[in-house]
């Protein structure tokens, strides 16, 4: 187990490095961050002005602008080459300095800290919804495999997986919030109860398609497990079917779901960008979209890094958990 963990930690470190470095280089090389900080001033030929090569009628103003540019460059390390900038940026991260938003001079860490809880609540609720729906659904479908309910649920899950989540969100918003008014249509943050209640629709939007894919995995594995000797044994002993299902068959059938759990979180995070937009939730997803549209480079970078690293670490934890669940994995 120790070697297994060590190897996974080494891989984790390598991936974290590659993810941050690639993301950082992409942001720095594809666009010009200087333009985003100081706007048109970035085109000022400051070296020329200093050397007196460029005739400028408003030398005073120009040199003041040049000071601004130089200050911005120094603040965001823009006067350094990209690899060095990366090292400095990681150094800043290590001291908890995520940079400052170009737009409103707020520290990025503060922006993230304000927006993170909403997104976390949403993601957790979405996973609760998906597991809460998928487990009973998969159990019933597998219990009466290839009967009417199972066939119907195959069709339903296929359809559910074909709805783009933004479309599902709009349809749910219309039906459940506007037409029948079961749930609020907008985000509420007055108290925790109201918050959770207003998050039900977004969580359904994210969770239902996921439930469909969990259900498919669980059903397939359960059907296999139900043919195993120990299940026949339990049945022969005369245990009630429900007890066999939940105490004996369910646990060994959860491997696929656990595996997909980590991967699906990435899809959920992607989905939360869209869902937060539909339901007006002030979370990370909305923040990053706004930041992209405003070219707010430090915020985009910080959030992308946060999301990617969370995703990597989460998959790492799932792998460990998986190795602990299933000893065969450790051997490899």
């Amino acid at each position, binding site marked *: 187990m120790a070697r297994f963990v060590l190897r996974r930690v080494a891989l984790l470190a390598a991936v974290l490095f590659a993810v941050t470095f690639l993301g950082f280089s992409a942001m720095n090389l*594809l666009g010009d961050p200087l333009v985003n900080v100081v706007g048109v001033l970035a085109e000022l030929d400051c070296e020329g002005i200093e050397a007196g090569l460029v005739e400028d009628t408003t030398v005073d103003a120009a040199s003041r602008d040049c000071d601004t540019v130089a200050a911005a460059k120094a603040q965001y390390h823009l006067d350094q080459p990209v690899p060095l900038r990366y090292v400095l940026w990681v150094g800043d991260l290590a001291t908890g300095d995520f940079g400052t938003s170009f737009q409103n001079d707020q520290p990025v860490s503060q922006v993230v800290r304000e927006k993170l809880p909403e997104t976390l609540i949403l993601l957790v609720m979405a996973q609760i919804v998906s597991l809460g729906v998928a487990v009973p659904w998969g159990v019933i479908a597998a219990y009466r495999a290839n009967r009417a309910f199972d066939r119907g649920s195959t069709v339903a899950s296929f359809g559910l997986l*074909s709805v783009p989540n*933004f479309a599902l969100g709009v349809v749910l918003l219309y039906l459940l919030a506007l037409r029948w008014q079961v749930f609020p249509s907008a985000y509420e943050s007055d108290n925790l109860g109201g918050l959770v209640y207003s998050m039900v629709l977004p969580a359904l939007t994210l969770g239902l398609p996921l439930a469909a894919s969990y259900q498919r995995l669980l059903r397939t594995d359960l059907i296999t497990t139900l043919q*195993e000797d120990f299940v026949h044994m339990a049945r022969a002993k005369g245990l009630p079917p429900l007890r066999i299902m939940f105490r004996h068959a369910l646990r060994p059938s959860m491997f696929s779901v656990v595996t997909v759990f980590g*991967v699906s979180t*990435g899809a959920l*995070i992607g989905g939360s960008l869209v869902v937060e937009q539909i339901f007006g939730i002030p979370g990370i997803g909305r923040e990053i*979209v706004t930041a*992209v549209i405003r070219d707010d480079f430090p915020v985009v970078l910080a959030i992308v890094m946060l999301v990617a690293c969370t995703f990597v670490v989460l998959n790492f934890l799932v792998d460990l958990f998986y190795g602990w669940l299933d000893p065969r994995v450790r051997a490899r």
Partner: protein
Amino acid sequence: MNGEDRTTPRPGASRDRRASRQRLLWRFRVLRLVRPTEVPDDGPAGDEAAVRRRLGPAFWVAVAWLLTMAFVAVFAPMLPLADPTEVAYSGPRESPSFDAWFGTDALGRDVFSRTVHGARISLAVGGFAIVFGMAVGGALGIVAGYFRGRLDQAVGFLFFVQLSFPALVLAILITATLERSLLVVSLTIGILAVAPVGLLARASTLVYAEREFVAAARVIGARHGRIIVRELLPNVVIPMGALTLLGMAIAVVAEGSLAFLGLSVAGDDAISWGKMIVDGAGLRDLQNATHVAMFPVAVMFLTVLSLNFAGDRIRQYFDVKELAF
């Protein structure tokens, strides 16, 4: 216990099968850095006869819908439709009528015409993305699977890094920094397809690279390039091709999500289903002019459903195993 005259599959066998599937799943997911020590030996050749199934009538319904979409997408400018960007004479938020089949939106533009024109970007991006993903991912996957060794490890690591970004977040990272033209958006979504397609190509290459005909080609002195192109490629293309439509469904949804966030192809004349849905998704429009959002939702759902359904049938027809992605 006389287990011999049992007709049902032995439980042990099913456990083995599951173990090997888990192992496969596991290998695709994580242990990209570990050199594979064994190759799954169930090449599709043996049970080919059992595989040939009918595609079924529903498959052809789905294909007909897709062909219709492709047709209207290609010929949209020539069809007798209202101008999708001009304000129609009937006024804003008109309900569906004989004049405007899908009604008009908040700016009084014809929703039917916009839906038809929206197919252009959605399908163009979807098609281009999957072709790009297949070309680049397929090439990388085959080369990695054929040569193995350090090259394989490097490519595997790249794929793993790519998959460490949630797809939509990676797409945003790319589109954030470039101007959002049709080419950039298509390329972005194409890049997203590289790693999953590459993993598939690599996995199938591993299977075939151990087969006798490849060994035979090597024995008679064929060069690497010839083995890859003449022996491996025709075999690897089948599972990849079988997953084309499924990949395209994902690409169409990805483009829709970007458009929904306002990060797909920029410009007023760049109509896309995702953009139309977000235009009609304001509470006021949803309340009073539901058709503005619901018609593009319906058309998009039918298209993605058709892609998924036809794709799934083709996958079954060619007996391609589902992968972790």
